[in-house]
């Protein structure tokens, strides 16, 4: 390994990088903003996917048993529901158990001791073999005597998934736009650097430097701008994760955000790759144009 060569090369990259500090700062800032947006978008997508998946899993028909129903009636109801071939499972949840479960879920979010008594009815939780069968099963169950009411959240789930889809498309559009902007800014920065160093480049060409040798420092410069931008973005996202996220979780108690995994650590690698790639591609194009000219 020729360390002298490496030192010369890195020295050239660093010298050029610091020489155009103003423009580099603009490029880095744009990459950082783009990646923060990307990070936020990835999170929102993960959250919606998580919620959607959870809610789809939870498409259970909740059939409330009439208050005056006897144990024998409950047993009969259970048998007749379970006999339906469209039904995958049926579970009887007495109101005491239901109330205990709910209190456990809301622990730390709502003070349930303020609610007097047990507001919940006894319910059957019924799962259909296929989500499409849910409405017809619900209708059949509702007709059974001893069932007070039947609820299922299918419409909400469908709306949620639709909303997620729309958000995803808008998000992709915005991100693509920002990456184009970041790419153009980096390319222009590099082009200015190339212009400022045209004398040096012409001398390099005169003494027989290959295009790779001429191109490489600029490419590294673009790569560096992209990576520094990504680093800045990761720091911003990390701070947001530590400060804003806990507040969001406690503010939106009815959305089970706790269960949504927002692991910044897993994303860091991807964000760096993306930042670096934007810088690399943009500078490659910018220098390539000059060398061809």
């Amino acid at each position, binding site marked *: 390994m*020729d*360390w*002298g*060569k490496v030192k*010369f090369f890195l020295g050239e990259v660093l010298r050029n990088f610091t020489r155009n500090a103003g423009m580099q700062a603009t490029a880095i800032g744009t990459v950082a903003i783009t990646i923060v947006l990307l990070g936020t978008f990835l999170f929102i997508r993960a959250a919606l996917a998580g919620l959607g998946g959870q809610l789809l899993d939870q498409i259970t028909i909740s059939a409330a048993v009439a208050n005056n129903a006897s144990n024998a009636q409950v047993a009969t109801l259970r048998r007749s529901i379970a006999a339906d071939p469209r039904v995958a499972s049926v579970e009887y949840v007495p109101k005491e158990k239901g109330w205990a479960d709910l209190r456990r879920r809301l622990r730390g979010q709502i003070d349930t001791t303020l609610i007097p008594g047990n507001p919940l009815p006894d319910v059957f939780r019924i799962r259909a073999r296929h989500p499409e069968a849910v409405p017809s099963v619900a209708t059949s169950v509702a007709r059974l005597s001893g069932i007070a009411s039947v609820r299922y959240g299918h419409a909400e789930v469908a709306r949620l998934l639709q909303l997620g889809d729309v958000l995803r498309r808008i998000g992709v559009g915005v991100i693509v736009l920002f990456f184009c902007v970041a790419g153009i800014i980096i390319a222009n920065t590099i082009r200015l650097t190339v212009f400022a160093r045209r*004398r*040096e480049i*012409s*001398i*390099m*060409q*005169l*003494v*027989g*430097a*290959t*295009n790779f*040798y*001429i191109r490489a420092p600029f490419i590294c410069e673009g790569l560096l701008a992209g990576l520094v931008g990504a680093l800045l973005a990761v720091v911003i996202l990390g701070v947001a994760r530590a400060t804003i996220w806990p507040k969001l979780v406690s503010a939106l108690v009815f959305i089970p955000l706790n269960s949504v995994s927002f692991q910044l650590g897993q994303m860091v690698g991807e964000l760096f790759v993306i930042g670096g790639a934007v810088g690399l591609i943009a500078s490659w194009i910018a220098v390539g144009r000059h060398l061809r000219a």
Partner: protein
Amino acid sequence: MLSLRNVSLVYPNGVHALDHVNLEIAKGEFVFLVGDSGTGKSSMLRLLYREARPTSGEITVDGIRVDRLRRNRIAALRRHLGVVFQDFKLLVDKTVWENVAFAMQVTGAHTRDVMRQVPRVLDLVGLAHKSRMYPGELSGGEQQRSAIARALVNNPKILLCDEPTGNLDPVNSNEIMELLSRINLKGTTVVVATHNQSVVDRMRRRVVRLEEGRVSTDEERGYYYLGLGQGQVLSG
């Protein structure tokens, strides 16, 4: 070593820089290209180091058909050549040593070779003691010697000089020409495009005169003006 056969160069603006030029330069020769401004001296050099491509004709440099050379082979050609300009083309933010080393470093030379070769050429051009100085701290002659050192550092077989004394006073001009002579004695083919009548007349080398893009005269041990030394022109 260098050969131009029926070479013409027409610039996109329609100017005919060279018109069916034929010229052979042998290995180890020292040749002056002389002529008024715009007669095609610089254009001929530009063709030789493939800064320009001929409109027609064949150009061979050290066995390489330069007129047919693909873009990605230009760098390899230029490693066979050293090029020196009137305005030196030194990098002002690098020292003499760094300027010379730069020519090796950007061609991927090993640091060991750079450390060995740079002091050698700086010594040859008489600048070893000023290697840490920046171009702005040097005289014109010293800057040109730095540029020559840079042109020589990759051991080229051919040295092309475009008005190397154009910015220099007579004393420095003579020193540069003596340096080029010494380099030539070591076996390097030297081609100098110049306006400088006194150095041409003093050196008495081969003189190729260009007029309107054509070779008008070609003399062994010639003068700037055909058959006439400087003294004769002045007295005549």
